[in-house]
């Protein structure tokens, strides 16, 4: 069963064609890792799924929610986009936690404001999620009092609070000190094992080897190559993929 379906997604910023007609389907419980050099369009692709960037053309479907570029009336479109977002967890490179709220309040925010859940119920849900990401003892800390790794785990718990059917990660460990990367990847691996559908933009090859069902290599706005981790990492067919893998290994 397809959870995400992208049809012919294009996106340009002025004369810069960042995405040139991307087609991609992600099955339920599938973990897809997207790699590629900077400027390849991988983050833009992820942001187009939830309309953080509006595609110029194409159709995005997540579950039952279908958003067509330029289609329908504006009001209806916005409502569909909100529904789609409520069912899609998004994790940012810079965490983007709400600095004026504690960890538990960050996680409660979505259920309370959007789902109109009672505060007690939302608090229990948030405490459970923070426990799940290993931060039961940090519930009442403000983001500024947490390390980057801890902040990113709170951000994952916040995304999970809406009980999404898919999680999108935009370079979730790129802003972290090396020693903090592992704790975030462990949380993500656990989620993958539980059957969460995930699309992860990352350079972490170890993570890709451990949990990815499919690796996608993007360059200059197109999907250059995709396949199992073994196929893409060990037997790349395209010259650009080979070059990129060489660059990552040498880094």
């Amino acid at each position, binding site marked *: 069963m397809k959870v995400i379906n992208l049809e012919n997604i294009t996106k340009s910023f002025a004369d810069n064609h960042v995405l040139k007609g991307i087609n991609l389907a992600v099955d339920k419980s599938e973990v897809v890792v997207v790699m590629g050099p900077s400027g390849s369009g991988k983050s833009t692709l992820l942001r187009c799924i939830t309309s953080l960037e509006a595609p110029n053309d194409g159709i995005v479907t997540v579950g039952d929610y279908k958003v067509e570029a330029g289609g329908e009336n504006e009001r209806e479109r916005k409502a569909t986009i909100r529904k789609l977002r409520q069912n899609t967890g998004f994790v940012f490179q810079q965490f983007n936690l709400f600095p004026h709220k504690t960890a538990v309040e960050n996680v409660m925010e979505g259920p309370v404001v959007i789902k109109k859940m009672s505060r007690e119920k939302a608090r229990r849900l948030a405490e459970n999620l923070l426990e799940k990401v290993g931060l039961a003892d940090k519930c009442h800390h403000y983001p500024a009092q947490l390390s980057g790794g801890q902040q990113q785990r709170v951000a994952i718990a*916040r995304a999970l609070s809406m009980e999404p059917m898919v999680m999108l990660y935009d370079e979730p460990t790129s802003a972290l000190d090396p020693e903090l990367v592992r704790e975030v990847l462990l949380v993500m691996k656990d989620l993958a094992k539980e059957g969460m559908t995930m699309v992860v933009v990352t350079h972490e090859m170890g993570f890709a080897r451990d949990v990815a069902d499919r690796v996608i290599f993007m360059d200059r706005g197109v999907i250059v190559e995709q396949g199992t981790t073994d196929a893409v990492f060990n037997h790349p067919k395209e010259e650009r993929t080979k070059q990129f893998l060489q660059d990552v290994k040498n880094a």
Partner: protein
Amino acid sequence: MTFSLITESLPALLNATLMTILLAVISVVIALIIGFFTALARISKNKLLKGIASVYISIFRGTPLLVQIFVIYYGLPQINIEISPIPSGIIALSLNAGAYLSESFRAAILSVDKGQLEAAESLGMTYGQALRRIILPQSIRIAIPTMSNTYITLIKDTSLVSVITVTELLQMSSLIIAKTFEPLTIYLVAAAIYWVVITGFTLLLDWLEKRSSRHIMQ
């Protein structure tokens, strides 16, 4: 002689200082409300609201406060709008400071990282929910303590209201001078009182600023 002059005038001057503080406090509160909503109008997508807000700001920042006071107190009665001196003063001070505060609010709203809006909207919030729950609480915390220049200007500007017969500190000083013919002493006392009020207020603001940004500082 001078010393007894000071002690004799002090009760009246301090009493008038209460009027100065009252004018300042009421005007600040109203100006904050005006400034807040004007800032929202400025950033809204509604062209009419945006236009009204811009014209208001332009007029009140582009003309002298004294002229604004004269228009409200001496000008409006000509079209049958008569407002007593104290409310006239409060209206002029609030509208004037509101125009400045709205610019501070707007800057504070725009200074909130755009990742905050993205995070809120990614959860599925409407723009309005994101503004109310996430953006505005942060920008108010940023804005209110940083508006100290405007508050201090407002306290000083209350002295302009003396020209429409409101008996605040400066007006009272002039009344006492008319009886005693001691302008140097009395004006210096008035200046000292202004200094104490403004310095005290500045210290309070510094304390508030430290307190409100305590856990937001990275």
